[in-house]
């Protein structure tokens, strides 16, 4: 057990040292002359205006939820489509039932007004 995992443990140790050692060494030898600009957090792009935490409308949540369902549906459809020729009629029936069930939910959400932006 230990023998077969030995190289991995050594690799992890070397990788960690490789990352941390330069930071430690440069920390030892660099000249330290901090000023206001140097201490500011590094960032790319334009400085933000106003508070950065804003509130999203909860309505987005409903759309996201509905989106995820159909997103996952697509994920399931890709492998089915690739293997379609081998699977035949049985898989076709299954996929039709699967989409049918999702449609029931979709129709329900639609008729209940979940897609209306009030």
């Amino acid at each position, binding site marked *: 057990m230990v023998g077969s995992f030995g190289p991995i443990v050594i690799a992890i140790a070397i990788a960690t040292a490789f990352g941390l050692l330069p930071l430690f060494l440069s920390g030892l030898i660099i000249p330290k002359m901090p000023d206001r600009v140097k201490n500011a957090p590094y960032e790319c792009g334009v400085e933000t205006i106003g508070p950065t935490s804003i509130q999203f409308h909860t309505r987005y949540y409903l759309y996201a939820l509905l989106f995820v369902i159909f997103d996952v549906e697509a994920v399931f459809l890709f492998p089915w489509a690739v293997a379609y020729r081998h699977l035949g009629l049985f898989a076709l029936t299954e996929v039709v039932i699967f989409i049918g*069930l999702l449609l*029931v939910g979709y*129709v*329900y959400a*639609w*008729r*209940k007004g979940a897609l209306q932006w009030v």
Partner: protein
Amino acid sequence: MNVAILSPEISLGAAAAVILLAEAFSAGNLSRVAILALATLGIAVSAAFLIPAQLAGVPTSSFSGAFIQNGFTIYFKLLMLMATFLVLLGSGRFLAQAEGRRAELVALVLLTTAALMLLVSSTELITLYISLEMASLSTAFLAAWMKHQERSAEAGLKFFLLNALSSAVLLYGIALLYGITGQTQLNGIARELVGGATPALLLALALLLAGFGFKVSAVPFHMWTPDVYEGAPTPITAYLSVASKAAGFAVIVRVLQTALPGVQTEWVGLIAILAAVTMTVGNIVAMVQTNIKRMLAYSTIAQAGYILVGVAAGTGQGLGAVLFYLAAYTATNLGAFIAIVEIADRTGSERTSDFAGLHARAPWLAFALAISLLSLAGLPPLAGFFAKIYVFWAAIQTGLGWLVLLGVLNSAISLFYYAQVIHHMYMVPAPSPAPGRSLPTLVAGLTVAIAGVFALGIFSGFFMGLAETAARTLTQ
């Protein structure tokens, strides 16, 4: 591959889809009676598939042995269908008030039942886990169903998070078991486990028991139970306390009996300790509760303890006793909860002290609740008495005398708080007459449940025979 074996579950799913579509196309105002009729139809069709399968008596399996149908699974499925039907009958006024959203509730209940039915039939760990998650997810929605009430939202969130934690623990157990044996089929695992208990196997066993212990709210994994039971809508609490619990026990006995007979001495010890702690803590904490739903939540924890005594017995007789206990417990708890739905609705309070003088205001409700509580306490000739006798008898024969002694002591303790409610209803004078008449559906549901409590008690020999026959098919 035999898809027809899934017909009972598919019928329930189809009923749920039909209810949702009907609601969608009736301008969001499908009547309560129409929804209940559709749900009843779905349940009846499902039962109509199960009963011939039971009479045929031939165990069938499908999906490479991941799904099995035999006497054991059919017993549990019929029990859960009955429980679902009674809960729907009992939720009459609650549904009547929930304009526009009631179809969702009924559809979710049907889908949960379908998932629980899949669960009792799974003989493979992945199928088992997925069915469990299906049931838990819809349960979380049901608990949070009154989303504008803080309590209900809290119940849903609490259930969701703690359930996720327990599922993670369960998955660790499953992963370890798979790592040890290279199998996910339960009987395959039993085949591979020949060497006896290794540390890894014991760890897997402990993790599995912790995961399943959460589902049946065994102490110390019971923390969610009182809060969720109190916050969830009362009909849903009734549903949770019977259907989910029955399925949880079905899974525990199946996994222990078919996958882990090799470490029976170890799990008998663990289950016995769980049983002892569960019934003691449940009963002692129930004594100080003032909210009737919280009290009954701790009471169901205590009941889970008694059932675990039967699981610990581990013999065929013990299994039969567990199955009989679950039937008796289902009838009794439904009786109590349906009565409480109506009483709380009329008095507008769930406090035990507000039940004062109920026998003068609503004699039938008071009688039904009193009978249910006495049956929970285990008084003859009610169902609860014989259920306890069978469980304890099976445990004595396998040398668990100390556990039985503790169980008897606990029953005596439990009588204290059950009797307190009865005392309030019958001895304390009524403050004011409460208005209102019960819906006929609720009265029917309550009557069936109470009739069940009496029938399971008086004809206990016959029903115990049925339970033992069903239990025997598990280990075949």
